[in-house]
């Protein structure tokens, strides 16, 4: 089933980072893609899959972003930062819009992004949102073990489902005894 898995990964990658095909738009995409999440500054909006489109026309640049969570306050900062970085690069008439559809999922986080997240001390999402959504959620959700980003132990437990930001929950490692954030599957 290697082919299937490979195809699925490629499909998710294309969905997560729909880079423009024309050179002018791609150049602007690369500049916008430098903007980082203000709460997790190791991740760019491209790593997250939050950058959805960049279109350069004769006299304007149109950018669309999608929020991670509906109420995520970091969205305003990311939107302002995209505007700032493109304006500084000399683009005029930059417009940044938020789109809700298709809904963002942690499946869109790049592998490089996940590695950077672990290095930063945050456990990356485990498993796929699609798997979570398809199973009929009973009263008790079954959770996959989360690996401690510090010592890689799987002997961890959830302290609180809702953590320091909407996208994270709080865990503790029972081996190295340190608490850590986990970027939960959405």
């Amino acid at each position, binding site marked *: 089933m290697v082919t299937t898995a490979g195809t699925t990964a490629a499909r998710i990658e294309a969905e997560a*980072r729909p*880079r423009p095909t024309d050179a002018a738009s791609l150049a602007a995409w*690369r500049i916008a*893609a*430098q*903007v*980082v999440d*203000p709460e997790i*500054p190791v991740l*760019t909006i*491209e*790593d997250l899959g939050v950058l959805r489109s960049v279109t350069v026309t004769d006299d304007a640049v149109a950018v*669309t972003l999608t*929020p991670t*969570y*509906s*109420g*995520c*306050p970091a969205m305003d*900062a990311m*939107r*302002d*930062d995209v*505007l*700032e970085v493109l304006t500084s690069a000399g683009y005029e008439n*930059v*417009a*940044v*819009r*938020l*789109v*809700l*559809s*298709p*809904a*963002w*999922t942690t499946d869109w986080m*790049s*592998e*490089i*992004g996940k590695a950077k997240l672990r290095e930063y001390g945050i456990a990356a999402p485990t498993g796929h*949102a699609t798997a979570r*959504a398809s199973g009929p*959620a*009973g*009263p*008790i*959700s079954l959770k996959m073990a989360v690996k401690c980003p510090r010592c890689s132990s799987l002997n961890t437990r959830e*302290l*609180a*489902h*809702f*953590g*320091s*930001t*909407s996208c994270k929950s*709080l865990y503790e490692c029972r081996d190295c005894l340190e608490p850590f954030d986990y970027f*939960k599957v*959405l």
Partner: protein
Amino acid sequence: MSEHIEADAPAQTPEDIHGHVAVDVTTLDAELIEGASVATADVAEYALWLGDDALVLAQQLGAWISRAPELEEDVALGNVALDLIGHARSLLHYAGTASNRTEDDLAYWRTEPDFRSLHIVEQPNGDFAHTIARQFIVAHYLFELYSRLRASADATLAAIAAKAVKEVDYHRDHSTQWVLRLAQGTDESRRRMITAFSDLWPYVEEIFRDDPLIDRLEGIAVRPSSLLPAFDAAIAPVLAEAELDIPSGFVASGGGRTGKHSEHLAFLLAEMQVLTRAHPGASW
């Protein structure tokens, strides 16, 4: 991931990024949904129903921050409130397109009879068990609602629902864990959980009541009464495990969808709206 980020991008510190962001707010297009059209009067009314439920509940939950039984719960209820604010913003923004009003106009400048929220969301926070019982009922209802609204013929409502359902799923799980924990905890926690369900159950019936508006929005809105079997099926195993009975007794009059509210809503709105009304047009 492409290599260009490492190759082209100068390392940016958070200070670089947040040093001097000067943004003209008016250049930010507030449009939330790509290609979203203007809501018709009926769709706007329906969006107000759902948006007001989310807004009022978020305002209630915000009051727990710094007062919950433990720090983690401050954070949890704060996060749930934030998700709901997000849903309210999208829904009220869409509702406002029908009458050329912004989400803030609708949140801060309407008075009580113009709100369309259900009575259950305006019930007081009470003790922690009351808040959990209210969360349990509303989150299970919203999960069933948004699951189906994803298939709405209205693209904007479908997009908002597809986003919201994933978040509400976590709210449902959170309240379920607490219902089990309180009902099976100490005698005192169990007593409080039972009292809370008995106080809130009269407001469940209104959630699943069909209003004439629903007949006019076939294929767009979700018929509330159609959600009842799924709601019952979802809560039954939890209540069974918690050894809680569904309370019997009176059914509250309701009327939230037509602007008839209990006394609680006016106090809540007064607190929510006071700053904006004292300083119209202020921004920061």
